[in-house]
């Protein structure tokens, strides 16, 4: 047993439960007294290493455990509170496997995170496999929190609130969080966990090499999965050294590389998931097939909080292929031999739902609520002299509208529950599924699938599709059932980007300087940070007003930055025009104490040749916004034809600190521009009689090739910590388009989506 570490092996699909509990610390099992610990790292990470079954080295790095009252980490003796976030296994055949605690939703997280580790390990990228860690508690991703703490002090990002015990700070263990979102993948895990794991393993291999060659470790270098002793020309593969390395004590201070030593990070590497995605083999939640599986379609009460009052199941039951009608508290589902049979039969039903007393609410009602909330908190009259500029902005509810509608397959049999679905957080999904099934978490197995888009829709707190699938599976037990949401169901039951209204007031003086920036906006208590512009303005008065609620809301790609980018950068433009200044020069001047922002702004303007002439009927708009540790500036070139807004070109400059995988970074910015543009031009979830009116893509239209502008991207590397890339590209899209539209038409559009008068 002593060195029997049983890590998930390559032959075990990552989401299968391990037959035995995985021991987080390889060395621990040889006796607590012998545990090696990295002194220097004790307060922020646990690390363990040992021999793998069949020979080879296994090394794991664990997450942070916070003590109750302060931001120090629980040191020694906290067994069971460590959460292994990263595993490395190097086998005697010189192959390296890295398990990364993040899921792949197309943002290249696995590849990027793997690169950070392999860089420190000095392994040959072609001899490495990067896999997603299974949904086991010991993988819970504590590092995610640290990435945020680095940015915002002790405030907890909103999407964690639901799954986080703030009082104890024991996030990972308490809530079972293993989350991909908030652009934290390359920020948190990457920087704090993976690099450490890679560097530690490299030190142990060097040590083993020093013993083998009989030289000092300082004379050795690791490169391409080999340890070299250049003076003598000797070298050995990692695989040849792992046997000895696995017996060594952990090094006391593994050295992390400085950025100028990077060889792999900063080069474009292909993603491993892509070949499967071009031949139709990638398996999404929607694609799961289990033996003897039934299919279900569902309709939930259209008004939030509504319940199923009554339904006559007979029209469905009479239909071919239908097995049963399942009534839930707030929904009705039909189980049939195919999804199509199920949906046809569901459409034949006339369920009656209650409306929770909200049947009178429509979009205008909601707008009125927000205006009334802001009326309660009026902005003070400015005390300075100068021109006072005021503006009111408003953004609608938005659906994530992932290309893959929600779907989950569940099977309750022999006291265990299996769930196959795509989720951004397998661990909390497990908790949710266990609660519905009335089982212990240990009896629940989550088999995570590829996600056909996430954007925040499959984050903790949004697993209603899993809850429903488990509820229906109780009725079909022991048979498995796949629940598929129609696009219409998906559109009507999202966790929407909130409806938000903001009121702004600024003062500009004669030479064109800003003296005051004041705002009140509806939202959550934590939203204030995004609303504080980087501009050097002495008198700032910014505050959030608690938002009235109607539809369910959630985290939508770039979260609160999605509205605040539009508000703040539209208003900055209004102030520039009020001051009679060029919008670029105006911002540039106000950023004299923010060199990173200024460099990004200047780069975007250079790329677009800001001051150069354009064809008649076209103009440029500029916007800059920081979110998730990255700064993005966009210049959009916009025109109007037959009343339609056309965006010809977007120049995007990005400072995300470090670019790990340039080609993936580029793809993220491309995607963000399109995502932001769909919202700017088309997207609006509207409410009538309490329910969402939108049904499908015709009334929630998407940018397609014909509307997709040419996008040029330029990255500026800085010494800043690694910033996110999945989301920061979104906020500066809508304001840059709106600002350009103002320049073309003279119309200042303060509501999204942008509709010309």
């Amino acid at each position, binding site marked *: 047993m002593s060195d029997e570490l049983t890590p998930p092996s390559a032959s075990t699909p990552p989401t299968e439960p391990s037959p035995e509990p995985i021991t987080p610390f390889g060395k621990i099992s040889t006796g607590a007294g012998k545990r090696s610990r990295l002194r220097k790292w004790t307060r922020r990470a646990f690390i363990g290493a040992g021999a793998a079954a069949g020979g080879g080295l296994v090394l794991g790095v664990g997450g942070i455990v916070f003590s109750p009252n302060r931001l120090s980490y629980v040191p020694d003796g906290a067994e069971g509170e460590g959460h292994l976030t990263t595993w490395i296994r190097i086998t005697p055949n010189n192959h390296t496997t890295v398990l990364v605690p993040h899921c792949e*939703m*197309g*943002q*290249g997280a696995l590849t990027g995170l793997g690169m950070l580790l392999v860089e420190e390990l000095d392994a040959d990228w072609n001899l490495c496999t990067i896999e997603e860690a299974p949904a086991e508690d010991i993988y819970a991703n504590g590092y995610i929190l640290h990435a945020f703490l680095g940015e915002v002090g002790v405030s907890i990002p909103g999407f964690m609130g639901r799954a986080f015990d703030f009082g104890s700070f024991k996030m990972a263990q308490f809530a079972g969080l293993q989350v991909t979102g908030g652009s934290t993948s390359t920020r948190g895990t990457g920087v704090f966990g993976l690099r450490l794991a890679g560097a530690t393993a490299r030190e142990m291999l060097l040590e083993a090499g020093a013993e083998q060659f009989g030289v000092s470790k300082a004379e050795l270098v690791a490169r391409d999965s080999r340890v070299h002793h250049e003076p003598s020309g000797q070298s050995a593969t990692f695989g040849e050294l792992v046997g000895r390395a696995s017996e060594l004590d952990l090094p006391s201070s593994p050295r992390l590389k400085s950025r100028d030593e990077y060889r792999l990070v900063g080069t474009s590497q*292909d*993603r491993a*998931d*892509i*070949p*499967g*995605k*071009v*031949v*139709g*083999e*990638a*398996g*999404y939640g*929607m*694609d799961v*097939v289990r033996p003897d599986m039934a*299919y279900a379609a569902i309709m939930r009460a259209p008004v939030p909080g509504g319940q199923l009052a009554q339904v006559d199941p007979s029209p469905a039951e009479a239909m*071919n292929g239908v097995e049963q009608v399942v009534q839930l508290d707030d929904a009705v589902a039909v189980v049939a031999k*195919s*999804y*199509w049979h199920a949906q046809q039969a569901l459409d034949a039903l006339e369920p009656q739902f209650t409306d929770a007393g909200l049947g009178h609410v429509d979009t205008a009602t909601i707008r009125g609520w927000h205006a009334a909330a802001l009326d309660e908190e009026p902005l003070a009259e400015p005390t300075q002299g100068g021109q006072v500029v005021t503006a009111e902005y408003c953004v609608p509810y938005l659906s994530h*509208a*992932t*290309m*893959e*509608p929600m779907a989950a397959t569940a099977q309750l049999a022999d006291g265990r529950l299996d769930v196959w679905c795509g989720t951004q957080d397998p661990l909390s999904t497990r908790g949710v599924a266990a609660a519905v099934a009335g089982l212990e978490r240990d009896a629940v197995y989550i088999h995570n699938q*590829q*996600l*056909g*888009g*996430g*954007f925040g829709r499959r984050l903790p707190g949004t697993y209603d599709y899993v809850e429903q699938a488990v509820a229906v599976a109780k009725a079909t037990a022991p048979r498995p059932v796949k629940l*598929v949401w*129609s*696009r219409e169901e998906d559109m009507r039951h999202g966790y929407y980007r909130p409806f938000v209204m903001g009121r702004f007031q600024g003062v500009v003086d004669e030479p064109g300087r800003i003296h005051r920036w004041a705002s009140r906006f509806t939202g959550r208590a934590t939203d204030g940070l995004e609303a504080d512009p980087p501009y050097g303005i002495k008198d700032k008065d910014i505050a959030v007003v608690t938002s009235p609620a109607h539809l369910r809301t959630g985290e939508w790609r770039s979260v609160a930055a999605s509205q605040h980018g539009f508000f703040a950068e539209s208003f900055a433009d209004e102030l520039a025009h009020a001051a009679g200044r060029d919008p670029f020069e105006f911002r540039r001047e106000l950023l004299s104490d923010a060199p990173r922002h200024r460099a990004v702004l200047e780069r975007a303007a250079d790329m677009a040749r800001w001051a150069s002439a354009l064809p008649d009927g076209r103009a440029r708009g500029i916007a800059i916004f920081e979110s998730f540790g990255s700064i993005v500036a966009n210049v959009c070139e916009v025109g109007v034809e037959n009343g339609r807004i056309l965006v010809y070109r977007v120049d995007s400059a990005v400072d995300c600190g470090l670019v790990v995988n340039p*080609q*993936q970074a580029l*793809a993220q910015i*491309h*995607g*963000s*521009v*399109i*995502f932001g543009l769909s919202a700017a031009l088309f997207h609006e979830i509207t409410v009538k009689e309490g329910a969402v009116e939108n049904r*499908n*893509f*015709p009334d929630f239209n*998407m*940018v*397609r*090739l*014909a509307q*997709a502008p*040419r*996008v040029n991207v330029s990255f500026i590397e800085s010494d800043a910590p690694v910033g996110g890339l999945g989301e920061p590209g979104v906020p500066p899209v809508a304001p840059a388009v709106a600002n350009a539209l103002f320049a073309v038409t003279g119309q200042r559009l303060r509501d999204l989506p942008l509709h010309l008068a």
Partner: protein
Amino acid sequence: MIDFTLNGEAVSLDVPPEMPLLWALRESAGLTGTKFSCGIGNCGACTVHLDGAAVRSCSVPVANVAGRAVITIEGLADGEALHPLQQAWIDHQVPQCGYCQPGMLMAISALLERRPDVTDEQVTESITNICRCGTYERIRSAVQSVVQKTDEDLDEENGNV
């Protein structure tokens, strides 16, 4: 029973004639590469080839394909040899989540079949498939990397204009 040719092989599916081809493919024939997204013929995720033309399988009753030839993403490659577009998709690392890509590949491969020298403008005009992840920029470059260049294109590229 509906009989047709699926990826080169004769199949016989026991499904109602009005069932959309999409569901017959996914749930009866067991080919899940063809994707469901909107179900109303709007997004293109379910695109397949019917006698060589791109169709949105969510909006084609399976009865309509009786006696005809259907190719899905699983049959786009020629055995082990990927279709040139599939290879270009890998070379240009086109997909993000990938969910729309089978439909994209089927729609664009049918277009290329008709117009081997298709221009970027023609692709932009005729391909209305949705990619929520916004991979359009790479789709454009990948397509242009496989189109057959006309003599004029080559002249232009070589600076002989």
